[in-house]
């Protein structure tokens, strides 16, 4: 190899390669930021144009052609199903995380659960919908419970893995202090470890809620959608914001598409509020990522 010790600077070609590579990275960042800007701009612009008090408080009219009306049926459906899914997945997810971090540790069962929770976050949400359809909708019919079940399955692995990360960060000294005071293991876990990890766990839960609120595909197969405002949990189809947006995007009439834009703004606002809350909680807590 021929070393040129006297040349203190890299050759012009190498410097240019370096510059081109740096410029390439800047282009990559710009290419990713363009869609961010386009999405926020058009959802806000087209959404605000169609947004009104009536949109928030009235159900969807029976034909896409008719202007007016709104997505109240979807808003209520989304609220019910996401609330039920949260109520089911959060306690189970936190218990599972406690098992992984405090009991199972590096044992084979814990490793298996960890691995398949990760794999489960990658299962297509439409497949989760198909599962709930074949197992529960076929015998019991479409309904809010079915949709909530599908959303809960989607939320569960997210809650488990984020809660486990937070439990890991609880200082060992806290546990030792609790044991030294004579607390049993379950007392320590429930009254010392869990409360100190709670803000971090809340962050994970809020992100899971944001994800569930935006899911469409599993709800097509489980909640089906409805133009009626309903609070029935079982026995009749129910709507959700994403379902109504999907229908609006597929139809050729201007009135239906305008409602879809307003619905997209409503949904995006909800999702971003939960994401923002998650960040605020995370920033305020000592134990978080």
């Amino acid at each position: 190899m021929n070393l040129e010790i006297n040349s203190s600077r890299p050759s012009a070609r190498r410097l240019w390669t370096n510059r081109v590579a740096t410029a390439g990275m800047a282009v990559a960042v710009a290419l990713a930021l363009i869609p961010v800007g386009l999405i926020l701009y058009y959802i806000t612009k087209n959404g605000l144009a169609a947004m009104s008090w009536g949109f928030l408080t009235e159900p969807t009219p029976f034909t896409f052609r008719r202007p007016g009306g709104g997505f109240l049926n979807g808003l209520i459906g989304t609220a019910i199903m996401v609330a039920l899914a949260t109520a089911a997945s959060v306690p189970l997810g936190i218990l599972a995380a406690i098992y992984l971090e405090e009991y199972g540790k590096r044992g084979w069962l814990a490793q298996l659960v960890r691995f398949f929770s990760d794999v489960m976050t990658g299962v297509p949400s439409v497949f989760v919908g198909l599962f709930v359809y074949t197992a529960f909708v076929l015998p019991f019919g479409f309904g809010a419970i079915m949709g909530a079940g599908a959303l809960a399955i989607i939320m569960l692995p997210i809650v488990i893995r984020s809660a486990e990360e937070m439990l890991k960060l609880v200082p060992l000294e806290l546990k030792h202090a609790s044991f030294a005071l004579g607390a049993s293991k379950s007392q320590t876990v429930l009254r010392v470890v869990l409360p100190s990890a709670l803000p971090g766990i809340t962050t994970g839960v809020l992100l899971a809620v944001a994800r569930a609120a935006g899911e469409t595909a599993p709800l097509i197969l489980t909640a089906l959608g409805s133009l009626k405002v309903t609070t029935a949990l079982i026995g009749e189809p129910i709507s959700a914001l994403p379902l109504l947006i999907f229908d609006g995007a597929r139809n050729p009439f201007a009135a239906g598409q305008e409602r879809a834009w307003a619905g997209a703004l409503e949904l995006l606002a909800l999702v971003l509020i939960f994401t923002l809350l998650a960040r605020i909680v995370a920033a305020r807590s000592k134990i978080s990522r």
Partner: protein
Amino acid sequence: MQSQAKPLGDIAGGIAPVPIENRKGVGRRADSLFSVVAALSGSLVLLILAFMVLSTTNTALPIFRAEGISFVTSSDWHPANGDYGILAFIYGTLVTSAIALVIAVPISLGIAIYLVEVAPRWIKGPITYLVDLLAAVPSVVYGLWGVFVLLPLFLQPAAELLSSVLGFIPIFAGPPSGLSYFGAGVVLAVMIVPIISALSREIIQTVPDDDRYAAYALGATRWEMIRGAVLPRGRAGIVGAVMLGLGRALGETIAVALLVGSATTINTSVVRPGYSMAAVIANQFQEASGDHIKALVAVGVVLFAITIIVNIGARLIVWRMAD
């Protein structure tokens, strides 16, 4: 990373002769009850996954039996005649995901490398936040935006440009349509950029600074340092990140359903309409009945099998990196 906790029994055993875990009484019983409940909740994930596979496969079984291997080797999909061949959908899923990767991987890696190696401190936070924002947008919002904004603004003109310049190559042959494998692939790319870039960023951050200093000490420019020291170290992890993005693209439903053009035949040209497995389930479910629904469930089972293989592969790679 915090070091692994020592089992408390060891620590207590060093101080007191009786290990804490051997205590008797009410507390002990509550303890074991609690640990059993926790273990059951943990195992729930495994039970749900198993139940998912069993229930869907069981429903789809008549279709698998009737169609045999032609279910995945035929592209003859005519529910009215009872013909269920899903090759066109498998093809569409693979093609749209491949297009998404071709676009998203260089962009994601560019972002990740820029944020770790190049960006000044003040700009890192805002860029990270904005790219993460892409991950929070629901797929139905991507679909709506894709159809009514990106389609006239970019997808249709780009498809026309591709086929007029490169139309002599069969995969870009016209007549071009924005509602196509290409259109769906572009929107998928936007959706997976935040996933791949966030994971690659974490991996690149774990490359020790000593490696960077060593490359600089040898006279490397920054790019040579990145190519010679950073990327080889992070290669396995980046492959894992890309596979997780691929897993997401394969299973993505609503945005593809709105943008892929809904043609049930195989089109060799990427600027022609097609279909994907997830999209056909979402689009045809509401009007389907009887065997047609069972066939859609069967499509889901095949989709699940493909994504689970990709995901397990990705997780194994990422897990090995972490250990």
